[in-house]
């Protein structure tokens, strides 16, 4: 080895700078275990009601690069958990005229373990399919005496739904699509396959026909929502399902539906049902 080479080697040993995003590629075969204990199902056979549209369903985690994947494998590295913790505080905070907190009724939060895995869900009393957000709003206005419930896309609601998802992590998603929910599911399916906007793109064009492919630098996932709300590295905050739907339709150069609209409730039920068999991951980490 020449002296010149040696000096360079010494210098290399002395200062190294690594941008994690350079060091990684999506490991589509990786398995997800969070905190070394919560085993997630990130790929499994598609539910029968997809009629073979896809053979295997994949969590969006599978399509992310190694460092993004790693951030979800440990709660300390997952910034979304900061917001789940704030949601837990809200859960135990009295709100509304009756001086009650969520915990006043739900004395054991573990009783809510299956909530994220089974919503949206038909609500007999209201005669409609309800999202988790609508259920929280119902508790606030009908039980807790709040004049105005949190907005569906408010930070409080995102924190609360992150907390509710976090206690259901690892639960297998099993959203009911038959019985009274069927008409809503049918409506959601119709939306899923409709080509919106001036670009004439449906959900299926990207997330059913082209998952695993790249659009420019975007690695297309199946558009599963089992990881919501999700902490996106792009905007460094929690993102709700309907807000993400809105972003996708906006990107078709289309007129979006509103967050909380009947259309998005139907689409949420339908897309959630496409993930039946995956596990609850929220708050997940995505790009």
């Amino acid at each position, binding site marked *: 080895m020449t002296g010149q080479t040696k000096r360079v080697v010494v210098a290399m040993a002395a200062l190294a700078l690594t941008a994690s995003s350079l060091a990684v590629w999506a490991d589509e075969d990786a398995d997800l275990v969070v905190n070394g204990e919560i085993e997630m199902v990130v790929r499994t056979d598609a539910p029968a009601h997809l009629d073979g549209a896809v053979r295997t369903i994949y969590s969006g985690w599978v399509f992310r690069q190694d460092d993004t994947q790693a951030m979800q494998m440990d709660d300390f590295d997952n910034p979304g958990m900061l917001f789940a913790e704030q949601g837990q505080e809200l859960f135990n905070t009295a709100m509304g005229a009756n001086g009650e907190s969520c915990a006043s009724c739900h004395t054991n939060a573990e009783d809510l373990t299956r909530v994220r895995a089974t919503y949206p869900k038909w609500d007999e009393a209201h005669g409609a399919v309800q999202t988790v957000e609508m259920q929280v709003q119902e508790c606030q206005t009908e039980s807790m005496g709040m004049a105005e419930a949190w907005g569906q896309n408010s930070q409080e609601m995102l924190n609360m739904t992150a907390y509710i998802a976090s206690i259901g992590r690892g639960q297998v998603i099993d959203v009911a699509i038959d019985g009274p929910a069927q008409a809503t599911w049918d409506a959601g399916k119709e939306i899923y396959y409709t080509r919106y*906007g001036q*670009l*004439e793109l449906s959900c299926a064009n990207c997330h059913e026909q*082209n998952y695993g492919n*790249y659009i420019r*630098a975007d690695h297309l996932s199946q558009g599963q929502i089992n990881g919501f709300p999700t902490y996106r590295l792009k905007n460094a905050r929690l993102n709700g399902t309907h807000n993400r739907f809105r972003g996708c*339709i906006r990107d078709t*150069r*289309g*007129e979006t539906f509103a967050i909380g609209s009947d259309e998005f409730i139907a689409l949420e039920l339908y897309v959630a049902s496409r993930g039946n068999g995956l596990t609850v991951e929220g708050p997940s980490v995505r790009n």
Partner: protein
Amino acid sequence: MTRQLILATLLGVSASVAHAEVVSPTAVVANEYGEISTSLTGVAGDPVRGAEVMTSRSLGNCIACHQVTALEEFPFHGEVGPSLDGAGARWDEAAMRGIVVNAKAIFPESVMPSFYKVDGFTRPGDAFTGKAAPGALDPLLTAQDIEDVVAYLLTLTD
């Protein structure tokens, strides 16, 4: 026909002679295979400018979906559509123009947007705002953009 008569006729359609030669999106004539044999502008396409339209995210952004080896210097080519290497040897000018104008006339299930179409959309928006389109839409590319892209694609013969 006298010169004055021609001018009078044209004024009824368009303010200038140059514009009168541009085929509007609703007046494009394709054959039964979706091929368009007539130039949309009558002005020869510029392949250099066509490459710019292909790679610019605010214009065609064609490489978002298509890999093109000749455009390798522009990063991040997509995989949603077929590679365009050799496309100029596979398609003649009329077919190429037809695909860029309205690919779905040739491949009905194509994911590819129609770049010279202004109606028949579901919930068309005001560009990428998510709001409803305020009025008539412009096509995604101008007629000359289309001619330039077609000219570029025809250079991709290997």
